[in-house]
């Protein structure tokens, strides 16, 4: 019935405004705590290996999702990798144009079965290709706080 009723004047439609007033606080977790501390304190990446499935997870995790084993074999992994896929973003969350296009990529880290989503920098969008070799560029130690943003971006190697 209501779908067929016409509204003669915009004043007749009424909406009530409100919000959900919360913020979220996410712990890094047992595995995440170590991963991000290594980035913060030493500027290096660690992964974790599942011996049954012969996989190296990055970011590392407490358990293997495939066989459910508790994982304990931490391994240092390279800060270099290949662009597995990428996109060039032109608008922000509200649909307004960005001052400069932003290149976001999934970078598979060398020798691992995982990788990280991050920005690409020091490169023009036209020059990015899938398979490109890139390396992580870290912020200065004093600026790092144990977050994914302690990595400034990945840039082409060489």
């Amino acid at each position, binding site marked *: 019935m209501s779908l067929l009723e016409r509204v003669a004047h915009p004043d007749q439609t009424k909406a009530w405004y409100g919000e959900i007033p919360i913020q979220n606080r996410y712990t890094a977790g*047992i595995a995440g705590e170590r991963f991000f501390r290594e980035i913060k304190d030493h500027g290096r990446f660690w992964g974790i290996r599942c011996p049954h499935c012969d996989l190296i997870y990055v970011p590392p995790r*407490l358990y293997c999702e495939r066989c*459910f084993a508790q994982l304990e074999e931490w391994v240092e992994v390279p800060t270099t990798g290949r662009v597995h896929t990428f996109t060039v973003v032109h608008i922000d969350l509200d649909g307004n144009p960005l001052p400069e296009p932003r290149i976001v990529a999934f970078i598979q880290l060398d020798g691992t079965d995982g990788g990280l989503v991050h920005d690409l920098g020091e490169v023009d969008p036209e020059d990015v290709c899938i398979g490109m070799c890139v390396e992580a560029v870290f912020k200065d130690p004093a600026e790092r706080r144990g977050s994914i943003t302690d990595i400034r971006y990945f840039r082409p190697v060489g």
Partner: protein
Amino acid sequence: MARNRVAIVGAGMTKFVRRAQETAKELAWEAASKALESCEMTLDDIDAVVIGTAPEAFDGVHMKSEYLSDGCGGWGKPVIRGYVGGGTGVFAPIQGWYHVASGLFDTVLVVCEEKMSSCQPHPQGAFLTIFDHTTERPLGPNLLWIFALEMNAYMTRYGLSKRDIALVSVKNKRNAADHPAALLGDPNITVEDVLNSEVLAWPVQRLDVSPVTDGAVAVVMAAEHVARRVTNKPVWVEGVGWCLDTAYWTNRDLSYPTYVEEAARMAYKMAGITEPRKQIHIAEPYDPFDYKELHHLEGLLLFDKGKAPEATALGITQRDGDLPVCPSGGLLGVGNPIAAAGLMKVAELFWQLRGEAGARQVPGQPKRGVAQAWGDLMQVGTVIVLGV
């Protein structure tokens, strides 16, 4: 209608803590791996996964069950998520039950998880959405109002005092002192402690209510032919029931939980129970507030309306009484991670009926128990009857 017999064959859980370092996924895995370990099964033995977890707003994650699924053993498997607020803890094993009873799957891993501590400044902010956005929220409500209003309606209807109700908090917190995962166990708590605690929203005082908690629980369910191979003491699902009342809560009679009675009747009918007071040996009703244990015991038809407080005062609901209620320590004693709390009660019945509850063991070799959970806008009743 053809239905297979289904049993719970394993159970595991995390500690219930005020704020866990583990991410929600890690909490889920901790409980799930303990459950599998308890019956020596691996992920390969599991055909399907049921996840129970409450509003996205608590963990601040969109599509929480997809996020949790790998920690619940769901990688590459059929996964379903159910959510009926606090009722989820008993609804999830009901879903697990019909996965197997239908014949579609032989084994199901049921995992319930909640990480409320990530919701700042207080999870109540997310709970505010329980009130109608237009006709109620502008009045500046908080979640305690609903329970305080219901508690007052119950107390006024039957002429109960705060003392009558505080006995439940004392019983459960003392029981919980024997639960290895408990957050709030206290072997020395007294009625005076409860009556002297801070008045939050009268008649609700601080020790009448179970606080924000993080935790996860998991159980493994199996069809009869698998259950008998895996364990020599399967705990059978004998009856299930669930019912949802109107969201227009101000139009309801708040002194009685009709939705629990409807769910209980459905479960008792399926279990062939005609005299619940004789045929049920342990009850684990949902107790996020002390008055709710009483309210729900009456809805479960285990005591006459208004009579549960008297039974409590007489010691009937103590662990060594005629009808032990919340031998686990309940939510008041163990903690209240919304979706996981009800499954904690189901796990308790599992351990009690197998004689594995340690210091909490109810004497006399109980054979049948009922667990009940409740949630949403005081709307849903979910009931499960287990037996050996």
